[in-house]
């Protein structure tokens, strides 16, 4: 439904996107995972036609996205990374303003505003100035401000930055319900937990390039090992580090050791050996690798420093 083909975007000092291609299907909840400066926001700005690329093209449905194509914006909702609200105005006034820009009839707009305010638990506060809202409330308001025209595609650029855990969960639930109703969602984040929880498919982006994409499981399968083993840090395990190394790479963390199995690793052999060396089973914990580890594996860096 959304086709991104060989997109490159150059800023005076950096190449923000370098030959990016992605296909996103209808009703997909698609995640764009990448560290700061990876090019996520730039890609979102291109998707909505706020920026134009040097190379490549983007189509949504059967329409090409360009800066001049204002019509296509009726089908896209855009939740910006930084809040875009008028603090001095009430929640309602903000929504009315944004809604009217989509030329919605008065009655319909009014109904939608009430319905969306209810959906994110802000109806009671509708007449209060946005100034008096918490960070989480502003976020929720910002999200529904981009949904008044009932777009089929929703672009969310890190919509949980600066949000308390409670609001964060409310936002997740709300987005999931929108997706269930049939909206295609593209969601950027640098939290792999968010991407794993929400997204049916994920692309990992770094330095303007897509370095991997697929479902969460497909991505994990790209790692040369299927599980990592968390090893309790104590005198015995520290003594036996050399033994552990026979099975893969050992990374020493503050409170535990992490064993990344090497090629030919077999759990049965591992545990037999552990027993022989007099180490206890309960010091070992099998752990499914995370996208964080994939990112580390692919780039040698962490998602967040």
């Amino acid at each position, binding site marked *: 439904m959304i086709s991104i083909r060989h997109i490159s975007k150059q800023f005076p000092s950096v190449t923000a996107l370098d030959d990016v291609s992605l296909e996103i299907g209808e009703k997909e909840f698609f995640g764009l995972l990448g560290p700061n400066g990876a090019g996520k926001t730039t890609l979102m700005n291109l998707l*909505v*036609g*706020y*920026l*134009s690329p040097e190379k490549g093209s983007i189509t949504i449905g059967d329409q090409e996205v360009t*800066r001049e194509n*204002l*019509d296509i*914006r*009726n089908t*896209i909702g*855009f939740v*910006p990374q*930084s*809040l*875009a*609200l*008028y*603090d*001095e*105005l009430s929640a309602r*006034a903000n929504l*009315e*303003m*944004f809604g*009217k*820009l*989509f*030329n919605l009839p008065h009655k319909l707009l009014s109904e939608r505003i009430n319905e969306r305010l209810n959906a994110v638990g802000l109806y009671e506060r509708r007449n209060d*100035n946005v100034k008096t809202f918490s960070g989480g409330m502003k976020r929720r308001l910002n999200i529904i*401000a*981009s949904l008044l025209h009932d777009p089929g595609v929703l672009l969310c650029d890190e919509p949980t930055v600066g949000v308390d855990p409670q609001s964060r969960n409310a936002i997740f639930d709300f987005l999931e319900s929108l997706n269930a109703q049939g909206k295609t969602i593209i969601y950027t984040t640098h939290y792999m937990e968010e991407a794993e929880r929400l997204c049916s498919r994920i692309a990992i982006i770094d330095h303007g390039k897509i370095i991997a994409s697929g479902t969460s499981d497909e991505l994990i399968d790209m790692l040369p090992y299927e599980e990592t083993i968390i090893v309790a840090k104590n005198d015995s395990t520290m003594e036996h580090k050399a033994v552990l190394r026979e099975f893969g790479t050992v990374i020493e963390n503050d409170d535990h050791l992490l064993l990344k199995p090497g090629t030919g690793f077999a759990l049965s052999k591992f545990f037999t050996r552990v027993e022989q060396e007099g180490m206890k089973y309960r010091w070992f914990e099998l752990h499914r690798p995370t996208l964080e580890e994939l990112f580390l594996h692919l780039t040698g860096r962490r998602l967040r420093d």
Partner: protein
Amino acid sequence: MSFQRILALLAKEFGQLFKDKKLLPLVFVAPVMQLVFLGYAASFDVKNISVVLCDQDKTEASRSLIEKFTNSGYFTIEYATDDYGSIQNYIDDNKVEMALVIPPKFGDDLAAKTPAKVQVLFDGSEGNTAAIGLAYVNQIIVQYSTKILVQDLGGRPLGGINAEVRAWYNPDLKSRNFMVPAVLVMILLITTMNLTSMAVVKEKEIGTLEQLMVTPIRPVELILGKLIPFVMIGFANATVVLLVMVFGFGIPIKGSVLLLFFLSLIFLLTTLGLGLFVSTISKTQQQAMMVGQFFILQPMMYLSGFAFPIDNMPVVLQIGSIAVPMRHFLIIVRSIVLKGIGLGPLLFPTAALLIMGVSILAASVVRFHKKLD
């Protein structure tokens, strides 16, 4: 073009404006204060210049001249002396601002129809007073000479020639009459330019401009939605200033109010264009204020004839001032308010203003549009 979208922006802009507790007084109280400051306090009128008189002639002619001075209302004779040498002390000790010396032969010279001389000494350190005082002195002397001339012709006034010198349109030479209409021009410039640039930059700062740009809004709608509120505020401003001018200062508008408002609209093309331009080169509201203040407002005030008469400027600046829109609007406002002149004689300044307004606004709109990228 969608009026609903423009209306939505207008509603938002006014909503913000009326909720802003600081801005509204600034928009409507500040002009009145400016008017009062500039109209009263900074008035260039000089009254009651203190004078030491040294009448060495003591004839009827000299007394008659002295009477002219005292009756004018501008001069007060504080001291009189026969000792020419002591005059210096009066001025040096700041006892007086001016000395009037009538030499011994004054009456005789007048009678003999040879040029008679009087000497006027000013304390030059008070440049402004000196200059204005000198103008008054000249005025009085010319009146006096004319009278003598008329008397010489047998007391008959010269047919058809009004030899009496007076400052036209501002008969009392009141600088206030000159200043107050100019304040209107300045206030229009300040409020519309600054409010426009700051309102646009504010949206950049809080990120809403970007959010507006991802809706189907057309650039022209966005720009109209941004400019129309400030046209309206500019007009409200102008109305307040004109009311204060007419009823507070007693300066009537001699010409057509409608024409004044219509030409103001043309002037607003410039100020709004400049505001928009400033917004494209500023990242913060503070920057916008500074840029507007130092790169536009002050040069305009100095070059437009607002603060200094254009005739007194070096020729290069006189020519340069033709490119200053405020200069033309000043001429227009002063002409309509003080002289009651119609559009006909004002065609040149009007055309100049229109051309500059349209080009500045167009260039700014293009730049604004590009900058949105």
